[in-house]
């Protein structure tokens, strides 16, 4: 097995006035090159914490992250990051926002060549006409497109996405999932995405990692997603396994997320069902296509 990204015993502890708060403990995960992995779990369980440790934006308390055989040390442009809000610099145009990173990574290339790289990715995400617009002139969906173009244009070793479509309406979200899938199909970047949207995870990923509830969150179960690629939404929804997998995910989040895997004493860490954020999932209708969100 070719492990490309390895998260090993990743642990995050915050020092709080009430003593150390263990957010994530011994988080182990390996990702193959070109694999798309989603991280799913209840709000506040520590998904973003894991992602930002991989990004190098949040200090690792213990454990480590290896990408392409090298342990990471701090943030760097070898990881393309897309956050929930695109974090564009409002005083720069779409083009300039992308160029900021391209200039930095491809400093040996000529000016024209760098412009072409930025233009290429902005065109791929459908912003060929809006290169010179400032973020304030773009819709939220378009801003997120710039964010995606920026991440891909760095030609990173891997992509890190933290609920990249969480703030968008469902129509725009579908569009952008498609855009992301297209780009990913071209570049085959190893990707780790946080989401709380079960359908999004199923549509995009090769594997879905379900995280247990915090504190001391860790990997709960892992689901292999067997849908063939290239994927198309309709085919995925019609796949005979789709609803079985979906129920498996929802079942985990509803029933098993609070159960500690083996080793730990359950009594100590047990979270009562009442504390688990309510999920209004009810029965699942075969024809339902709306994404189900597991937000609290």
């Amino acid at each position, binding site marked *: 097995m070719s492990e490309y990204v390895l998260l090993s015993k990743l642990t995050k502890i915050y020092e709080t006035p009430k003593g150390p708060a263990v957010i994530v403990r011994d988080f182990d995960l390996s990702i193959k090159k070109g694999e798309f992995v989603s991280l799913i779990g209840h709000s506040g369980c520590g998904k973003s914490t894991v992602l930002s440790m991989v990004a190098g*934006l949040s200090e690792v308390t213990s454990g480590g992250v290896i990408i392409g055989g090298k342990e990471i040390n701090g*943030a760097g*442009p070898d990881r393309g990051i897309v956050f929930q809000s695109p974090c564009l*610099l409002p005083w720069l145009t779409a083009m300039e926002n992308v160029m900021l990173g391209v200039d930095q990574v491809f400093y040996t290339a000529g000016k024209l060549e760098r412009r072409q790289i930025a233009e290429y990715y902005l065109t791929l995400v459908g912003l060929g006409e809006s290169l010179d617009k400032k973020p304030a002139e773009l819709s939220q969906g378009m801003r997120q497109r710039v964010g995606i173009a920026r991440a891909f244009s*760095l030609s990173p070793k891997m992509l890190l996405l933290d609920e990249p479509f969480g703030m968008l309406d469902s129509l725009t979200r579908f569009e952008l999932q498609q855009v992301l899938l297209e780009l990913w199909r071209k570049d085959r970047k190893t990707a780790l995405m946080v989401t709380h949207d079960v359908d999004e995870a199923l549509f995009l990923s090769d594997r879905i990692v379900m995280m247990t509830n915090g504190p001391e969150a860790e990997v709960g179960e892992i689901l292999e997603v067997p849908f063939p690629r290239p994927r198309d939404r309709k085919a995925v929804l019609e796949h005979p396994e789709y609803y079985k997998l979906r129920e498996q995910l929802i079942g985990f989040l509803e029933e098993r997320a609070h159960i500690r895997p083996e080793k730990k004493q359950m009594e100590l860490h047990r979270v009562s069902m009442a504390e688990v954020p309510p999920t209004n999932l009810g029965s699942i209708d075969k024809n339902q296509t709306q994404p189900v969100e597991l937000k609290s």
Partner: protein
Amino acid sequence: MNKENQFKFDWVILPLLAAVTVIVLWAMVSSIQGVSLPSPLKTWEASKLYILEPFAKRGELDQGILRFTWYSLVLVVKGYALALIVGTPLGFLLGVSKLFTKSLDPLIQVLRPVSPLAWLPLGLILFQKSEPAAIFTIAICAMWPTVLNTAMGVRAIPQDYLNVARVLKLSRSRTLFKILIPAALPYMFTGFRLSLGIAWLVIVAAEMLTGAPGVGGFLWQEYNSLIYEHIILCILTIGIIGFVLDRLMSLVEQRFKTA
């Protein structure tokens, strides 16, 4: 009352009414026996020449009011420029470094309330000449709002923007010019505007003490020559110019607010 009339009432009639009241009060006070305050009419009579021929130069001590104002403005611009050149980087250092803030903040808090009247003699001792002393005084009094607002602006930069710099591994200078400065610009301009107000406030004191030609110098000289009408002329001029400068700066400030 419709909107337009309301506007007229609020912005024309009310201020006019207040101004007329003040002039009437002024006239009444000046008519009291034993008070040497010149009346509004006498003030106008004596100032007419200076206002109607604002750029005339009849002699070293006898020039149109805007000509004097021009001299003052030139001096203010020099002191103000110095304040920005020194104050902006200082503000950045304070904003970026906790160490700097901790060490310099008490000093700033102590120096900030010192009056220009206190700095000027020190300037004269340091520079021996009146113009550099005046520039020094303007700069040191006017720079604090720039320093403090710039520091506040740098501290207020959202973590998201700083993360962009971290992820892209931008060099220090690129981080400064591409991220820190643009992000802090709105705060910086608020500081620049407040600093300009102070610089203008200080000029008069500086000119009075150094005897440099300008509105402040003119005011002091006319006081010594017992031409009190011109004192009032100078006060009004200083006020109006200060107001205009503040308006202009806030236009610039607004432009950067939306950026």
